[in-house]
């Protein structure tokens, strides 16, 4: 398994990234294949030797769970190299539209998966494999003494949320509508990572984030659950990419994610089953 940060997409697209896991012979074959067919033939499509590469594009929040699942997949499929590319869902869709080779796409929201479907990039129909709900993160020690979502509306609580133009902000707005609590945030960030950053550093008294973010942050934050969080679920769809070099392997990977092992691993990160 090799992992590729989204800063290296262009390298990946031109077929350099397989160098990390493949033998020289396979690399030679892959380079030749790429040279003959031009770039963008589909993930690992050029590798005709024993090793096969399965390229998975996944939302950044799936990093820990998918790394483990990819390792498990490689163990059960000798000769298969799973290559993971994590990034913001909208960035990943843009890369797919630009012809980046991928077999599987796992999005953090329905909207970006819809974009991929509309762009005719997806094979079949996507399925929901996980859900993420909102929660309140407070710095460890809970300096402002927050005990409920309602407390966040207090004047003396500096709360940070996502802006309504990004998905986590839309979800926060829904919770506000449901509970009738109107927040007066000190900052409306453009990503949930930035919200977490303000909480872990102690700048803010509280932040509305996803449960998975709180799990991933470990001891630096504490969680205050939102009573009606279950009613606003952010669903994670997964699908096979049309240009997949190995559609069967892609489906098997999706089965692993949706199966008991995958669901158990995702639950550890704070995801809920669909």
């Amino acid at each position, binding site marked *: 398994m090799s992992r590729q940060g989204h800063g290296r997409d262009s390298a990946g697209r031109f077929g350099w990234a397989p160098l990390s896991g493949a033998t020289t012979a396979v690399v030679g074959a892959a380079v030749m294949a790429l040279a003959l067919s031009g770039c963008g033939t589909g993930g690992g499509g050029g590798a005709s030797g024993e090793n096969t590469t399965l390229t998975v594009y996944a939302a950044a929040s799936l990093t820990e769970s998918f790394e483990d699942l990819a390792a498990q997949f490689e163990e059960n499929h000798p000769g298969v190299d799973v290559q993971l590319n994590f990034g913001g869902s909208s960035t990943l869709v843009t890369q797919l539209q630009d012809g980046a080779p991928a077999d599987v796409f796992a999005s953090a929201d329905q909207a970006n998966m819809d974009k991929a479907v509309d762009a005719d990039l997806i094979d079949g129909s996507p399925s929901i494999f996980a859900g993420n709900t909102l929660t309140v993160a407070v710095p460890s020690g809970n300096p402002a003494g927050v005990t409920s979502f309602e407390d966040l509306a207090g004047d003396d609580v500096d709360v940070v949320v996502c802006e309504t133009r990004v998905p986590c902000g839309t979800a926060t707005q829904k919770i506000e509508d449901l509970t009738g609590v109107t927040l007066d945030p000190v*900052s*409306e960030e453009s990503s949930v990572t930035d919200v977490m950053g303000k909480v872990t550093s102690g700048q803010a008294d509280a932040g509305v984030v996803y449960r998975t973010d709180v799990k991933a942050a470990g001891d630096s934050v504490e969680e205050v659950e939102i009573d009606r969080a279950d009613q606003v679920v952010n669903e994670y769809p997964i699908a096979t990419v049309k240009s997949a070099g190995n559609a069967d392997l892609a489906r098997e990977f999706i089965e692993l994610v949706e199966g008991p092992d995958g669901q158990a691993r995702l639950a550890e990160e704070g995801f809920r089953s669909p």
Partner: protein
Amino acid sequence: MILPAVLGALVVAVPVLGLVVQVDFAGFWRLISSESSVAALWLSLRTAAASTALCILLGTPLALVLARSDFTAKRLVRSLILLPLVLPPVVGGIALLHAFGRAGLVGRYFEVFGFSVAFTTTAVVLAQTFVSLPFLVVGLEGALRSAGTRYEGLAATLGAGPGTVLHRITLPLVLPGLASGAVLAFARSLGEFGATLTFAGSLQGVTRTLPLEIYLQRETDPAAAVALSLVLVAVAVAVVGISAPRAFSVGGRPG
């Protein structure tokens, strides 16, 4: 010689051109005149002006000390001041957070007096000053060095004390250098993104400057992001174009 020079110019020109051709000019006015865009532009101009003033106020004495005095830690001080030039802005933001943030080195004492810079426009100005100060100090120190000390010494023999020499000789002589340094600091402040995002937060009219608004617009309305980017380019070109050539052309030869 010509070919690399042309390539060098193209490296800068092509992306700007790419941006310009991408702009939806038909809907340009509608895209940039939304309430959030106007608020962001206005905030950017105000904070950049404030941070430029702060840079002049703090950077001028600093440049004078670096150019005109001799002390052992001078190299160290100069390297330290240049640091924001080479630091990734987000690192600058994290550093500011741990200095002036609520739990920061200095910030925790602010808290005691009931004063907090967290999530305020002050934090934006602070972040911009942090990244822009080197531009002013480096520009001004260079001007001071090339102006030399002969005029100052001569003024002293005419009976002028250090204060008189400073405000009647030194500062007027390096005014062009000070002006071009201030212009660069203003432009840099206008473009500041990473440190603001990390340190100040993002709230319309308070901390969400134009670059942050562009970043946010990109999520939902890429056309508006492109249009706003062009506004930022236009403002930057205007600022540098109007003030810098004058400053640079006489920078070496005072008068």
